[in-house]
């Protein structure tokens, strides 16, 4: 007989606040008719909800001891690891939503006025003329963040799937909503959606196999069943590999990365910023929990997979990033390489990964949002002086350091952080990841990672060379405009300050993550 599970609402307050605000936001879409008012209200609601959720999570952090709370019929846990990811995801969400709201000085948004119109059609022009605004993106972002928070807190393969879809579907939509180059945007979204659906299917198949072998969907039971069996059933291994494939897809690791360059390039840049930081964080959070609880007994069987994917991601990501001429695609491939670095921390299955991975994601996410926030502000300028699309061709950034020293310096800082140069957050992140790997005996992998870092530095530095060492070509002097909105500026300053702070004095945050380095299994 079915018994309704006992739901501990208090424990899940942060997620509930975010999802509820998302639902309210959708209602507001129907109620508020004026576009401008609606935008302000939606932004306020989204920010308010996420700040409140983060506040609640912090209060919970202070009140929970290491034991945390297991709730929802054993499907979700609220331990400090989950709370740490919650706060991180909310921070990414807040910064991302701020970017959503940024507009050019001419009042142009990043999103298409009406998603349902065909690109280049009469309807589109009409929607534009009437000043329509697409404010659904705010509730969509809230749903995505809520789904990601669940993703990081679940200890059950089925709940993991539900959370995966909750955060993926809004992302598919948001990717398709670019204002300019809409066909590219649609293409990116479609690829993302199709490949995402494909990987979801693989994941589900894997879950079915695991269920068939163990008779349970909960991480703890699966782990216990694996240990209990005297012989390794191929069902386990195949199931586990398929489950990991689904998660590695979200992480953007090679060979499951093919969606990322197109989705990154096609999506409106604020969405790219949010997606790049938050999706990767959520994927890493789920991967951490799955690998360190459910599949931990399969350590030996899965190690080769992690090593292979890590090496492939680092090498392929780095090599392909080297040849890109579009900035968004370059950052997309760099994010693929970073997925490899994240996996380096997993290799060796050292418990250090439980604090190293969240820290790495924090540093990576902040720098990513910062870099894309800079990108939204550098725009092409037409002959008649109207400010157009973002200047994403590398060559267009030549000489930016002379015209906008502070903005270019911030971009340089984010790039140095990606490259892992000391005194930036990225260095400490890399140090932690390498430490976790070496602790687990995976030092050959670290060696590969180090060589890839050196090669990767080359394309990060290439942009710095362009910005600071290259003189602006005469004909280009007038074709670039730095058009900033206070929101975008604020995001750049916040992320830049955080990258420096985490690079010089990471002690406090490291301690927090060390406190979070125990996992509840939900038993």
């Amino acid at each position, binding site marked *: 007989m079915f018994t309704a599970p006992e739901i501990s609402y208090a424990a899940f307050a942060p997620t509930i606040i975010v999802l509820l605000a998302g639902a309210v936001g959708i209602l507001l879409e129907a109620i508020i008719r004026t576009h401008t008012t609606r935008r302000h209200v939606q932004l306020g609601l989204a920010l308010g909800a996420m700040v409140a959720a983060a506040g609640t999570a912090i209060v919970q952090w202070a009140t929970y001891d290491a034991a945390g709370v297991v709730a929802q019929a054993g499907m979700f846990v609220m331990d400090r690891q989950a709370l740490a990811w919650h706060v991180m995801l909310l921070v990414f969400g807040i910064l991302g939503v701020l970017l959503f709201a940024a507009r050019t000085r001419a009042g142009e948004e990043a999103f298409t006025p009406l998603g349902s119109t065909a690109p280049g059609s009469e309807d589109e022009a009409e929607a534009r003329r009437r000043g329509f605004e697409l404010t659904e993106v705010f509730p969509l972002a809230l749903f995505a963040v809520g789904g990601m928070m669940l993703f990081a807190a679940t200890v059950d393969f089925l709940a993991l799937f539900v959370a995966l879809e909750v955060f993926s579907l809004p992302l598919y939509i948001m990717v398709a909503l670019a204002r300019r180059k809409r066909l590219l945007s649609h293409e990116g979204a479609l690829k993302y959606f199709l490949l995402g659906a494909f990987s979801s299917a693989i994941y589900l198949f894997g879950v079915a196999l695991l269920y068939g072998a163990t008779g349970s969907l909960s991480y703890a039971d699966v782990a216990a069943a694996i240990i209990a069996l005297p012989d390794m059933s191929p069902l386990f291994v195949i199931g586990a590999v398929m489950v990991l494939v689904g998660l590695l897809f979200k992480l953007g690791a090679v060979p499951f990365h093919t969606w990322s360059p197109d989705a990154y390039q096609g999506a409106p840049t604020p969405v790219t910023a949010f997606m790049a930081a938050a999706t990767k964080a959520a994927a890493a959070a789920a991967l951490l929990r799955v690998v360190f609880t459910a599949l931990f007994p399969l350590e030996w069987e899965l190690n080769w997979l992690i090593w292979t994917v890590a090496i492939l991601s680092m090498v392929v990501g780095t090599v392909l990033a080297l040849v890109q001429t579009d900035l968004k695609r370059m950052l997309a491939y760099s994010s693929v390489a970073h997925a490899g670095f994240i996996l380096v921390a997993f290799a060796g299955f050292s418990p250090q990964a439980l604090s190293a991975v969240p820290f790495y994601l924090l540093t990576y996410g902040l720098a990513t949002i910062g870099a894309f926030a800079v990108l939204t502000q550098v725009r092409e300028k037409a002959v008649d002086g109207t400010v157009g699309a973002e200047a994403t061709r590398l060559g267009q950034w030549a000489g930016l350091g002379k015209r906008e020293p502070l903005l270019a310096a911030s971009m340089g800082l984010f790039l140095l952080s990606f490259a892992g*140069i000391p*005194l930036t957050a990225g260095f400490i992140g890399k140090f932690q990841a390498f*430490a976790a790997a070496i602790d687990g005996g995976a030092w050959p992998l670290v060696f590969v990672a180090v060589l890839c870092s050196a090669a990767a530095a080359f394309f990060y530095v290439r942009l710095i060379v362009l910005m600071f060492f290259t003189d602006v070509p005469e004909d280009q002097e007038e074709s670039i405009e730095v058009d900033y909105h206070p929101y975008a500026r604020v995001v750049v300053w916040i992320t830049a300050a955080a990258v420096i702070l985490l690079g010089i*004095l990471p002690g406090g945050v*490291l*301690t927090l993550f060390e406190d979070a380095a125990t996992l509840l299994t939900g038993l």
Partner: protein
Amino acid sequence: MFPFLTVLVALPAAGAAVLFALPEGARARAREVALGVTLLELVLGVVMLTQFDLGSAGTQQFTEMYSWIPQIGASWALGVNGFGLSMIVLALLLTPLVILAGWRDDEGDATRGSRYLALVLLSQAFMVGIFAARDVFLFYVLFEAMLIPLYFLIGSFGGAQRRYAAVKFLIFSLVGGLVMLVGVVALYFVGPGGEHAYLIDNLQGTDFGTTAERLIFLAFFLAFAIKAPMVPVHTWLPTVAETARVGTTALLVAVLDKIGTFGMLTLCLVLFPEASAWAAPVIIVFAVISVIYGALLAIGQRDMLRLVAFTSVSHFGIMVLGIFAFQPTSVEGAAFYMFNHGLSTGALFLVVGFLIRRTGSADVADYGGLQKVVPVLAGTFLIIGLSALALPGLSPFVSEIMVLVGAFGVAKTAVVISALGVILAALYVLLTYQKVFTGPTREGLESTRELSVRERLVLWPLIGLMLLLGFLPSLAIDYLREPSADVIPVVSAEVAE
């Protein structure tokens, strides 16, 4: 006690921040600010010299320690023994001279000038920090972070090839640095661990296990060999030397490259004595190759800046030979040579820079017969050149002899071959002098300006110091004897086994 070292690091860093923030109108004054800061640093350095307890030159003095990132075992731990102090004094001495030498480089573009000086000050902060670091993590962080100001110094200021040079420099340094990072991370796990895991004092004497020790040693050594630079990982230096500003190159070769040999001396030998002894024969072979190869290539250069760069490759070979011979005299000699080479090569780069500034060419073939037109410049050039070929009476001679004599007992062949390098040095110095300054005066060079007062002020103190230490070497060697003696027994005990 007054925190000398932290102040020495913080002061130029603050100066750099001020220069970056200087409003448009005040940027013309950047030179004065930068010179003032570096002179103040120099005064502090001299005060340190007098306060330093020579009786225990081998122990760390002026020590400071604060917890920095206890979670990963890193501390802000500074302190110097004779080695560190000599290097810091060298850095403090050369920076104001380099600023003075480039006094007129940016006339007409005050913004550019203030940026350049800000980066120079920032580099000085890093240099002092590295030579004073008593914590491996701190050392590493500064070692890598220093690349940023250097990269901008090379890439933003200098000749047409500067972007290529900057990237080449960065990639070489990063490869070395990142390989070293693996070693640094590994050190935590094989070492004592804990809140002060990276303190050199805590790591010293730890048994890491033979394999681990050798691998970590190699990771560190590669980084230092690239920095030093040794053949075959030296190729970035000539590229940088010919394109970067002369002041940048002077600082780079005279001081920053010493971090390579300094690291070998104070990290490799101290932390990994067994591995150092194990690798010494191979390293000595590479050192000897550097000596000869560097000298031969120097003879073949037409570009004077490249020439000086290759002579340095040769000289660094001698230092490495001295260090890895593990003899008291040779190590002392190498440490002393690190200081002298800074004076000699720094002066050589600067005087070549003055020459280039007059004619706009670095090509030896564009010169001839300048002796008659600018006798003071010619004389100054000759003395500095002679210091590079280790003429007796000038301090580089003393240190070179110490290395060769000290190492002779253990590595006869290496010493004999390296001595050839000294003879080759005579060739490249004297041939260059002959081509540039003797013979009939070339057309267009008759009105070349004589060395100005400012330029004399830059070069003559360096010459004076080389003469002083050439005749009274014990003034400097007293600082280096004890730390050298402290390094040796650790290694020789391993050799004896």
